[in-house]
């Protein structure tokens, strides 16, 4: 494969071929896009390219995972875990850092998080040991002040549901209340244009008013 790539990019100088190959490691970037990006960088001022290279290195050197919740962090713990104003007896479990960011943007949750870094995917061989599930359970067991609720905010996909069900089962012996994000109509959504799966979920999750 790599040899093929070298052959196809053989018209370029060696330094550019190397960059094209590195860029092709990025998700969704094929050879054409990688070559286009390489040409773009070649044509930018030197300072701009150095700034990009330095930003990449700085990110790699400074960003790691929070030792408590496994969110992205600069330092031992992330900003959320470090914030004394956060409620510490409620934890929201998400699949990835992007989900955490989405919830933070909504400003509707003031508790702590736990990032699993994936979801159970039996078809892809992703099992419980591949996620940060054991770390969540250890965290709940060792927390100095008890956690009263764990909100399972995994995606509304088969993998997300499997993860939620597995977590609910694992949390039961710990006596922690486990809740799941509601599924249904989006804010501002018209019933008329909703798909049947969404309507079924919305009917199943209806609540008394």
């Amino acid at each position, binding site marked *: 494969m790599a040899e093929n790539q070298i052959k196809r990019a053989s018209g370029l100088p060696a330094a550019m071929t190397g960059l094209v190959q590195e860029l092709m490691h990025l998700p*969704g970037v094929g050879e054409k896009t990688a070559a286009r990006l390489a040409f773009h960088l070649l044509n930018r001022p030197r300072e701009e390219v150095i700034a990009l290279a330095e930003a990449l290195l700085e990110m790699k050197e400074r960003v790691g995972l929070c030792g408590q919740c496994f969110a992205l962090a600069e330092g031992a713990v992330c900003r959320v875990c470090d914030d004394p104003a956060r409620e510490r007896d409620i934890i929201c479990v998400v699949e990835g850092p992007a989900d955490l960011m989405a919830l933070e943007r909504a400003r509707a949750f003031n508790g702590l998080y736990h990032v699993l870094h994936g979801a*159970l995917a*039996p*078809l*892809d*061989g992703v*099992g*419980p*040991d591949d996620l940060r*599930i*054991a770390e969540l*359970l250890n965290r709940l067991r060792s927390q100095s002040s008890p956690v009263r609720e764990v909100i399972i905010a995994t995606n509304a*996909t*088969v993998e997300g*549901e*499997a993860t939620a*069900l*597995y977590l609910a*089962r*694992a949390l039961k*012996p710990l006596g922690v209340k486990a809740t799941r994000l509601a599924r249904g109509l989006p804010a501002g959504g018209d019933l008329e*244009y909703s*798909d*049947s*799966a*969404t309507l079924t979920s919305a009917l199943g999750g209806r609540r008394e008013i």
Partner: protein
Amino acid sequence: MAAEEHSPAIVLRTRDYLESDRIVTLITRDFGRLSGIARGAKVSRRRFERRLEPFSHVMLRFRRRPHGELMFIVRAEAEGLESFLLEHDLARIAMGSYALELCEALTPEADDASDVYTLLVEALRTLERAGAGAALRQAFEMHLLAACGLALDFARCRLCGAPAALTAHPLAFVTERGGIACARCRPAAGDAAVLLPGSDAAALAALSCAQLAQAPSLAAAGRAGAHALSRFIAASAGRRLRSVEFLERVAGQTAP
């Protein structure tokens, strides 16, 4: 542009591609196993109704590409097709995932797979109704093997063809032959054979003949029978399926 084609289909597997696309593998009633790219599948509720998820039963509308293995998925809609509600139960998800992976592993791409499609519909329907159990798993495995031309035989010795007495002694299941060897032929079967209690062979024989919908009410074969089946499937698929470990973990109810 190629003409639009359509067929009922069940989604076997999906994976995200670029920002909003999905690559989807389905088993169709009319065109066998197909893989295609669904542009904008993660955002278009109109064209895909969020139905490109494993277990989804859809009317697939697609166009073939002149040069390329992946077809273009134009739409995927419910159109009144039966749906399978498995997502509320972990055991059902685990078993259903295994059934999907098994279909993908045993069905050649773009081959006639109408029997496999029909069988998978029946299996998912039974799974929703009766839950995950060893008898349903074993029955599905044997029915699917048969639909793929790999039927197991417990009625006769695979080596000499003599009728087998399933109740007598432990029998030898010969993986390479996909069946049992009688007591006389057992030495010729070699050390690789799996010893099978007569009761296990009888249970497997009954499950292989029964309607899939009836399987949950029948007895499942024990550990040796299940092991024999697993070995035969791994040999036929050329690999151990990825979903097996999760299925067995959930079935064993082991939580960390």
